[in-house]
């Protein structure tokens, strides 16, 4: 196919412009971390003349138990991700394969819970966690994270699971396989792209989460990274170069997860050709 070179140039120009628009704030942020003691946001002339150095990163890394919080967050977000994706997949499987009373109603309720603003739900949620005796434990945090995460992943994965051809399922049934085998060997492998996407959402969602974590966790040493980030903000003045340096460190795992999973990012065609027309 021939392409018009002029059209191509225009397309590329638009794309490059788009990249610039999206990446400039990020670059500005990185450059700000090289400036010292920015109690007010530094101006472009200061930012672009800053000499790259890691001083602020060093300060931040050793301040406020930052490293400890980093590990805490890794544990919290890791378990929450695995939990919400796995249980979400199980729930989605049930919605696709089984018939049970009030199925659609329950599904609607699921979706409905996604629309309640977090701040509104925090007090009832806290009361529940408290009555279970899970305040100040990661179990309490996981309960809310995974419970909330399941809703999203069920909603997302149900659509995917419905596209899995019946014939594949029948082939397992014919060989005497049960639901577990169908789930484990057909649905999960065929939905890898969706699972990968879901994992990214679940991870970045819990990794960034500040409010619930601060409410449930009372012990200072058990706090997660977003809380540590907020500690850098003072009441009257904040050192922005520290805040940005801390934010860059905090964002690294999310970027790494993206790089790992991006190849799996929603792509169709996994089950094309598996069934003869």
């Amino acid at each position, binding site marked *: 196919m021939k392409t018009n070179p002029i059209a191509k140039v225009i397309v590329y120009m638009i794309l490059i412009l788009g990249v610039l628009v999206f990446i400039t704030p990020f670059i500005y942020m990185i450059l700000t971390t090289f400036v*010292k*003691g920015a*109690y*007010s*946001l530094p*101006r472009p002339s200061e930012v672009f003349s800053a000499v790259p150095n890691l001083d602020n990163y060093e300060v931040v890394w050793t*301040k406020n138990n930052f490293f400890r919080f980093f590990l805490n967050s890794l544990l919290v977000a890791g378990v929450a991700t695995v939990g919400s994706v796995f249980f979400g997949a199980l729930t989605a499987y049930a919605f696709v394969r089984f018939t049970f009373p009030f199925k659609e109603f329950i599904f609607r309720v699921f979706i*409905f819970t996604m*629309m*309640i603003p977090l*701040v*509104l*739900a*925090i*007090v*009832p949620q*806290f*009361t529940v966690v*408290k009555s279970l005796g899970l*305040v100040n434990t990661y179990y309490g945090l996981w309960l809310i994270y995974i419970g909330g995460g399941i809703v999203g992943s069920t909603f997302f994965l149900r659509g995917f699971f419905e596209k899995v051809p019946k014939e594949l399922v029948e082939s397992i049934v014919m060989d005497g396989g049960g639901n577990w085998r169908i789930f484990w060997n057909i649905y999960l492998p065929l939905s890898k792209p969706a699972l990968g996407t879901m994992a990214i959402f679940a991870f970045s969602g819990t990794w960034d989460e*500040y*409010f619930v974590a*601060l*409410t449930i966790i*009372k012990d*200072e040493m058990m706090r997660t990274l977003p*809380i540590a980030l*907020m*500690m850098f*903000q*003072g*009441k*009257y*003045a904040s050192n922005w170069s520290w805040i940005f340096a801390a934010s860059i460190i905090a964002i690294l795992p999310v970027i790494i997860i993206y790089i790992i999973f991006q190849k799996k990012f929603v792509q169709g065609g996994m089950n094309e050709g598996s069934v003869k027309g």
Partner: protein
Amino acid sequence: MKWFKSLMAGVSISTLLLATACSGGGGEKADGDNKGSKDKVTIEYWHTYGDQEEKVLVDKIKPLFEKEHPEIELKLTRMPYEGLKQQVIAGVSGDAAPDLMRMDIIWVPEFAEMGALKEVSSMDGFDAVKESVFEGPMATNVFEGKYYGVPVNTNTKVAIYNKAIMDKAGITEAPKTMDEFVAASQKAKDAGAKGAIGIGGSFSWGFLPYFWSLGGELTNEDYTKFDGYLNSPESIKAVEEIAKWQKDKLAAPTLLGGEPGTWDGMKKNEYFMIDDGPWFYSILMNEEGSKFKPLEDTVRGLMPEGKGGSRSVIGGEDLVIFANSKHPEEAWTFAKWMMTTEPQKIMSETGLIPSNKEAANDPEFLKVPFAKEYVEQLKTAMPRTPIPQWSEIEAIINQNFEKVVRGKMSAEDAMNDAAKKADSLLK
């Protein structure tokens, strides 16, 4: 979709009700399980000190208190500001609040109304504490005639002038009266200052010092009426004057949230004057490798005296005990101790202004190079209206004030409207 909307509304409302019901109810129990046991009692203290202050708190205050009161252990938890109010509400309604907290003075009436705080005026030794502290900060703890906290530290804002611009404009000392102040600002403007009057923004903490000094007032003396005060001719005139500064380009862009910020403008010798609290000095003096030397490069003065006098706004924090504290006696012991001269002096090393009169007038504290003006200004500084509805009312006043400054509303209409809305919230 109609059923869906009504369902959603229903759920939200019941959630809200639940939240308020919970927070209202947690008040009654207390005492009980702390009697008779000789074990060490741990009291939990949520604080919001900054880095340097926290260090003093952990290294000096905690050991000293535990030495004098070996039966009590102090557990310190530093809380971030973001969403702090909701944290407190969740803690109170879930019976998981700490014993004590250091909270912003304007929150105290609001939480007291919720029933979240323990009344301290009936506690043993309260009168002695009340005697020893400044009146203004103490008044921020009042709700319906009773006290719900003690002022652990106080602050206010003074006028800070840029030395370089003063030299350029031929101004030799900080203006004392409002007329001198406006004239000096005009001179500074003519001498090339990017902004002359650096009001922090169109919110009450930012504009109240000017509003009050120009003769404006918020309420009657017992804080029950805005109508006739917020929209009195003097108040309207004060707002008009500030709007005029904006029109004449005397006000710095910060009044409407523009750049550069007050600190930035001061550090770069672009703003003639800003107003700020002692943290301006304590933070910037500790900044390594900065060319800006706050003490040498600025001149401090009281807020310029207008029809209303030289008025500034009181800030600071109060120490409160939660109603569902398991150890109210011990918590009060700590609060009381914290108000005595010794710990007050120790905390003042960081530039926090003691609310204890003796500590504030201690020669040692007055040696802090910037302390004098702040202590002086505190004598005439006023608290923001200490009522539970203040944050709602403040939002209305701020919005109308901004409309006037932007020229979208006349000062008279804006203040009449705000006074009416504010009074309806008081009922």
